């Protein structure tokens, strides 16, 4: 599959490397060239410097031909705009945005965007780690 990833931080670079090793065609976009240091030397995909929410940067990165567009940059606003540009301008068949703010995550879900919200996921995991695991009879709290 052809995958375009916006944001080459911890998450973006990890996914890029994994998908690359699995044999997918991966392009990673980041506004900061230094971010590509997160990728190992054996990364065979394409790296592009630019703002991933920019309609022309997406065009150059091959979003119109890609099967998936993942917006994994740090800002909710940028990720939200980027996936909507990919979906509505470039007709990207599948887009996913990381949105940190749970309330905004709900807004974008309502607008038909696939959203991953790390805050609620971590909230749940921290609760489980803190209260559930050492309570075999389930008397959490």
């Amino acid at each position, binding site marked *: 599959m052809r995958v375009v990833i916006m944001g080459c931080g911890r998450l973006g670079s990890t996914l890029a490397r994994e998908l690359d090793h699995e044999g997918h065609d991966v392009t990673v976009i980041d506004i900061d060239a230094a971010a590509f240091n997160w990728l190992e030397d054996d990364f065979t995909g394409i790296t592009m410097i630019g703002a991933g929410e920019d*309609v022309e940067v997406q065009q150059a990165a091959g979003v119109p031909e890609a099967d998936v567009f993942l917006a994994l940059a740090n800002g909710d*606003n940028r990720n*939200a*705009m980027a996936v*909507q540009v990919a979906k509505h301008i470039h007709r990207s068949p599948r887009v996913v945005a990381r949105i940190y*703010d749970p*309330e905004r995550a709900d*807004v*974008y879900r309502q*607008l038909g965007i696939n959203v991953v919200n790390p805050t609620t996921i971590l909230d749940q995991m921290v609760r489980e780690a803190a209260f559930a695991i050492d309570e075999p009879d389930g008397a959490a709290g």
Partner: protein
Amino acid sequence: MYIILVGGGKVGRGAARDLIEMGHEVCVVERDGNTAWAINNELGEVALLGDGAEIHVQRAAGMNRADVVVACTGRDQANLAVAQTAQTRFNVAKVIARINDPRNEPIFQTLGFHYTISATTAIVNAIEQEVSAGLTRLTQMRSTAFVLAEHVIPSLAPCVGCTVRDLDLPPHTVLALIIRKDDEPEIPGPNTMIHAADVIVAVTQPEHESALRLALTGEH
């Protein structure tokens, strides 16, 4: 009316000044402390310090009772986020978005934000009008593909002395109004004669503007 301006830069602060003058209730949401302080210093306690794209800040600003929300930061991704949450989450009746990079206009239009302000586009249009003789684009008509343009007929234009019927107008183009010096505005008919110095207001499509200019002024 209660108007929330998100972004307290030159645009937001200038708009706040005018809207307060007009008697509206105004809140400016600004994330930079110094800027917010300067606004409060000039305009009274109207600034709310915070990131206006955050829903909890929007709630604190009273967005649920706002009549108008203007997203006027210098970042288009923030303006889009503000516009979308204002509309989806708070059902604000009128949402106006500033577009900084004209290349972002299509995404705002596609997502249904037709009340947009683009200073860059306005300046570029103004420069184009000064450079290209005879044509002034008055406005892009809301949610249609048409523009309203104004032409002043030069004295040596080939169409001077012709009737409207004789003009070689491009498709999808209508002459809407003729304004003559010392005369009443007139709706042109097929037999209306074109005179030098006539001001003609026409409706056309952006791609036909140059053909319209050629038909009316003889200039490319």
